[in-house]
């Protein structure tokens, strides 16, 4: 224990010479000749001892006081007792990000990390190790008590996250492991703020490298036809080159093969047009330090139109509705069997099963509302609506269902959800006296309506998603379970609630969701510029278990023990004083 680093302890030690000096001065005997000792016969000798051997007695009080000072000094140094290290759990935080797969010309950082973990475990006689992966979120991989179990468990460590959350994972591990846990972080980047006050051993196993990566890949329709865009970045401080290939799914020959040269830190965007009904595309560049960002899959966009049936008697209102519907570009107007039926005819109340009725309710004696309007922004219809400055004219009609737009206590738009899962919307509006149809809110409202209805149709909301986001799939009515096949071919089943599935895009590649006879596909692409940049990776070791928090974790507070002993010593001291005072008034106590 570094005693000299504890000022309070040093101050306490000053008490030792002080007490010694007091005792020396008090115990010093003055020589005093007397005529006779006869008047002193009944005086007792002091217990502190004297010059003559037969008078020497142990100055117990002195030793008790010295012992008390030493014990208090010891307590001031914050002593700790070594606890059993075998019971101190090991918490491994494993960087689960993509960059851990970078090879840098040899084995991957992940492989080196596993070696490091096994080396740490090899030094432990007995251990209980818990592995926590730090991907987008901290996740417990599992706990092991043997090296064999550890090796098996580490095989499940994939390193496919588009980012890491080492800070959160360290906090999570500390909470999970408790105060005595020993934290080990294994990453490819050096320690940053996560190291905090210490107590964490950080092993960086990365190697810096240059890398050309696909950092963006999009595919969609444009007024001039379907196109796709690819953005490539040379994440290196030196010029580099690569070969870009774009291949139709199932085809042998690439439709694009292009050698590209990059300057240092240069990015390039390449846009290509596609013919109608082009299949899925597989984009690839030459192999380099990180293979995960060298490939992307672009599925064709979902071109399914929302069928909209309009039955509106008011010419002006019909015109406004039709224009708004056409502006979405995702709807086609039909006269029968639409996904949406928009009408101002109050007599039409029965709708087919898959048709959502939208009632435009004119009413009598309309009133104009200028706000303030309250919009349910959490509802798909309320997204992007801003009714400031709008004059909304509507009759006093009580709209059933959940209110979506209100002017004071007057409900202007409501939604009624049927037991089948379909919706019935009501909009109270008098177009002639409203400025709503002339404002931007009108096309926004119908775009929200068409998009919402499209999302409710079976299919994938976004066929091409980035790694780490979610893919949303809506299945048909009959399916209550689906089979999901990930890019590695692994299949698992998942129950469906209200026809909707949210699938975390945790692995790059092509995913398939099978619901009965229907199969839905979406592509996950590892587009993470931060993970593709390998220039900041390092091999390093930082932090120490024997410092600060780690000491506290392995050593229990023991200041109470010397304090308790000191109190006992002082109690004995008081007892001796009391006894001496009773026994002899002439004896100093």
């Amino acid at each position, binding site marked *: 224990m570094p005693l000299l680093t504890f000022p309070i302890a040093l101050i306490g030690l000053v008490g030792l010479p002080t007490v010694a000096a007091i005792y020396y001065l*008090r*115990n*010093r*005997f*003055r*020589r*005093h*000749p*007397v*005529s*006779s*000792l*006869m*008047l*002193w016969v*009944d*005086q*007792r*000798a*002091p217990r*502190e001892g*004297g*010059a*003559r051997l037969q*008078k020497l007695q142990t100055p117990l009080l002195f030793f008790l006081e010295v012992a008390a000072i030493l014990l208090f000094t010891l307590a001031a140094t914050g002593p700790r007792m070594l606890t059993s290290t075998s019971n101190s759990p090991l918490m491994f935080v494993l960087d689960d990000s993509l960059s851990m797969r970078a090879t840098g010309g040899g084995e991957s950082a992940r492989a080196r990390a596993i070696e490091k973990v096994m080396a740490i475990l090899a030094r432990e006689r007995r251990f209980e190790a818990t592995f926590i992966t730090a991907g987008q979120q901290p996740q417990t991989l599992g706990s092991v008590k043997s090296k064999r179990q550890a090796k098996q468990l580490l095989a499940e460590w994939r390193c496919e996250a588009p980012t890491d959350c080492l800070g959160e994972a360290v906090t999570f591990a500390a909470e999970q492991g408790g105060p005595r846990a020993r934290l080990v972080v294994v990453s490819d980047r050096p320690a940053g703020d996560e190291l905090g006050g210490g107590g964490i051993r950080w092993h960086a196993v990365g190697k810096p490298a240059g890398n050309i990566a696909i950092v963006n890949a999009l595919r969609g329709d444009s007024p001039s036809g379907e196109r796709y865009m690819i953005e490539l970045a040379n994440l290196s401080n030196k010029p580099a080159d690569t070969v870009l290939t774009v291949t139709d799914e199932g085809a042998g020959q690439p439709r694009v093969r292009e050698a590209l040269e990059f300057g240092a830190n240069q990015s390039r965007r390449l846009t290509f047009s596609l013919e109608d009904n082009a299949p899925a595309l597989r984009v690839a560049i030459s192999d380099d330090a990180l293979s995960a960002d060298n490939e992307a899959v672009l599925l064709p966009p979902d071109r399914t139109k929302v069928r909209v049936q309009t039955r509106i008697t008011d010419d002006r209102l019909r015109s406004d509705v039709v224009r708004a519907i056409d502006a979405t570009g995702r709807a086609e107007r039909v006269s029968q069997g639409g996904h949406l039926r928009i009408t101002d005819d109050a007599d039409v109340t029965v709708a087919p099963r898959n048709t959502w009725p939208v009632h435009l309710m004119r009413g009598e004696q309309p009133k104009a509302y200028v706000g303030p309007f309250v919009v349910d922004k959490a509802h798909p219809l309320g997204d992007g609506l801003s009714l400031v400055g709008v004059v909304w004219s509507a009759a006093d009609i009580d709209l059933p269902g959940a209110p979506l737009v209100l002017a004071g206590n007057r409900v202007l738009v409501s939604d009624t959800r049927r037991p089948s899962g379909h919706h019935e919307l009501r909009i109270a509006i008098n177009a002639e006296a409203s400025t709503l149809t002339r404002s931007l809110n009108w096309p926004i409202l119908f775009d929200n309506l068409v998009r919402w209805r499209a999302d409710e149709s079976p299919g994938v909301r976004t066929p091409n998603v980035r790694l780490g986001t979610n893919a949303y799939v809506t299945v048909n009515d009959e399916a209550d379970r689906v089979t999901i096949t990930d890019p590695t071919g692994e299949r698992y089943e998942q129950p469906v609630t209200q026809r909707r599935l949210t699938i975390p895009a945790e692995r790059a590649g092509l995913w398939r969701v099978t619901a009965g006879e229907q199969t839905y596909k979406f592509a996950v692409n590892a587009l993470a510029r931060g993970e593709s940049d390998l220039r900041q990776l390092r091999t390093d070791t930082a932090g120490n278990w024997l410092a600060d928090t780690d000491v506290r974790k392995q050593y229990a507070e023991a200041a109470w023990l010397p304090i308790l002993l000191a109190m006992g010593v002082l109690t004995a001291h008081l007892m001796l004083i009391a006894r001496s005072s009773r026994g002899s*008034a*002439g*004896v*100093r106590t």
Partner: protein
Amino acid sequence: MMESDYHQHLADGEQAGARYALAVPTRVPTGLAGIQLGQHAGASLEFKDHRDYQPGDDLRRIDWSAYARSDKLTVKLYREEVNPHLDVLIDGSHSMALAGSAKPRAALGLAAALTTAAGNSGYTFAGYLAHDGCEPIAHGTNRPSAWDNIAFTGSGNPEAALHQMPPRWRAQGIRVLISDLLWLGEPHTTLDQLVAGAAAVYIIQVLGETDVDPPQRGNVRLVDCETGELKEVFIDAVAERRYRDNLARHQGAWHEAARTVGATMTTVVAERLVEGWDLGELVTAEILSVS
């Protein structure tokens, strides 16, 4: 040879005693008839008075004729006889020359003053020093400043010295013991020897301030100046009180013994006495009178 200071002490006492005369004893111890009449009833042939018999009175002095007349026991009182001679016995032990105290100066000065006062009263005198025995002081019958060979080097006490070799007391003389009386022993043992055949006995206790007041508080290693014995004590209020109680108890025993045998005892503190050689305490004790 004796220390030169002692001559000075004797001279100082002699000078101090020049103004005084030895008082005629007012309390008479048991003794033989003397040649000078005292103020009290004694054993002389001169009838003085009658008084009622008290147990202990000499049966030979009962006035039988008075008894026959009054049927009441009455004793005859005769005026005492006092031999006009003063014997001064000085305690010659080490304690009388306690280092740092004025005890030797006071003791010698007192002896000189008393003998000078005795001379003023027409008394003869002799000085004795209690060492291993009671030895006459060289030239002890001359004026005190001529005394010699006085040394406070004895390891015993006056009681032992009186027992070992008593002085050649003059019968019916006045005897003075100058001592600190600090030895363990029965006062009567000493006093009985003093009063035997004496017309009057004066006990003058000479104490130093270090004898009256205990040392300062704290740890003290006491050294017995006579035996060299050591004793380590811690002085506090209780120890001080206990010491003073012991001293008072010791002095009380001597006073009580002196009263019993008809001796007169007084105590002087050496340092206060030699400060101005005021012998008022001896006058108060009716040992001296202003001449």
